[in-house]
């Protein structure tokens, strides 16, 4: 069998197990709802304002930096596996790549991209 066949079968079993775990509480637990239980939890105080869904812009920035650097990290993988064959040629190519990466990294650092205010 193709090695991915068993992986697919296992995934089906895992999804089924997780589904079972998510459905069971609705069947066994008894529900006695009241207005206070349905409120969002704010340490016993009645919610003062609805959640606006706003949060600091820095989180978006981190997410964007992550996408940039993670794509670059992903391109290391095929190179790493072939390193024994590529030898010095592969090393030089990758050092050029890392220098380009380092320029971007230094720019973000200097602009304060990693400072959490």
């Amino acid at each position, binding site marked *: 069998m193709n090695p991915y066949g068993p*992986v697919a079968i296992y995934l089906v079993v895992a999804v089924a197990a997780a589904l079972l775990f998510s459905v069971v509480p609705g069947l066994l637990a008894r529900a006695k709802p009241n207005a206070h239980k349905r409120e969002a939890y704010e340490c016993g105080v009645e919610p003062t304002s609805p959640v606006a869904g706003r949060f600091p812009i820095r989180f978006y920035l981190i997410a964007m930096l992550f996408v940039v650097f993670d794509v670059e990290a992903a391109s290391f993988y095929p190179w*790493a596996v072939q390193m024994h064959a590529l030898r010095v040629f592969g090393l030089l190519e990758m050092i050029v790549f890392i220098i380009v990466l380092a320029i971007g990294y230094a720019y973000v650092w200097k602009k304060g*991209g990693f400072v959490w205010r």
Partner: protein
Amino acid sequence: MPVWLIVLIKSALLLFVVVTAFAYAMLVERKILGWMQLRPGPNRVGPWGLLQPAADAAKLLLKEDLTPETADRLLYKLAPFISLVTAFAVYAVIPFGSSSSGTWVIGNVNAGILLILAITSLGVYGICLGGWASGSKYPLLGSVRSTAQMISYELAMSLSFIGVLILAGTTSLDGIVHAQTRWWFVLPQFVGCVIYVITAVAETNRAPFDLVEAETELVAGFHTEYSGLRFGLFFIAEYVNMLTVSCIATLLFFGGWNPAFGLAAVPGVVWFVLKVACFMFFYMWLRATLPRLRYDRLMAFGWKVLLPVATLNLIVTAVVVAYTG
């Protein structure tokens, strides 16, 4: 018996083992934390508290399943499910013993480590959506924090694997372990190993990186609104993820099922389980010892220290392999 049926039985058995391991990892953690704080730990339910996991499961099952009015109902119910599925799914490719016969692994795929990275990075969706869909302030804050933390440390984590890949020359987990028969990669890749262990603790949101559920500031973080078994799903996912990263550390840096001290008479699976258990103990020890980090320091550490050090480590490894390997 047809092959697919054998795989099906093996899968069910493996999941049973993983869930049982979770239940007892939780008990052991509470015992160890107890002992480290000079308390007995759970000892009322059954001898030495051995039935405590069953009691906890029964209690979680019977608890009312609350959904706040402000929540996005579908996503709110979907989030713990996503967390759990991704936590379980990784075990499809983890080999527990030499897989030449295929007995100790579900799927011996040659892109094993890529698949593991792909699946574990999906886990962030459970936490991110769970906090957002709760429609409550603390969960939202907890989830954006944890998302930022997890993606930042994921970078250094994926870079810390590369040194191992250069030495092993393959992404197959089986191949990586076979490459370690002479010496474990923790010796030539010590820096990579240290980075991996740090990022692994941060990825699973465990102390001292458990800012996601910093009780003093965020109540319980992203799962504040969850109750009953739906909270339990996040809990299971967290412990299963701890087991997963312990397995990965064992496979990549500590020789997998290769015996230590030349004791080849002991079966490989036993060695594997022993090494994973040592890692789990290390986790619990960390939780008992270290205080929580401050959030700005955590992010600065990830981006300004771990990332460049991981890159330097991979350059040094590549230079050594290019000139000597």
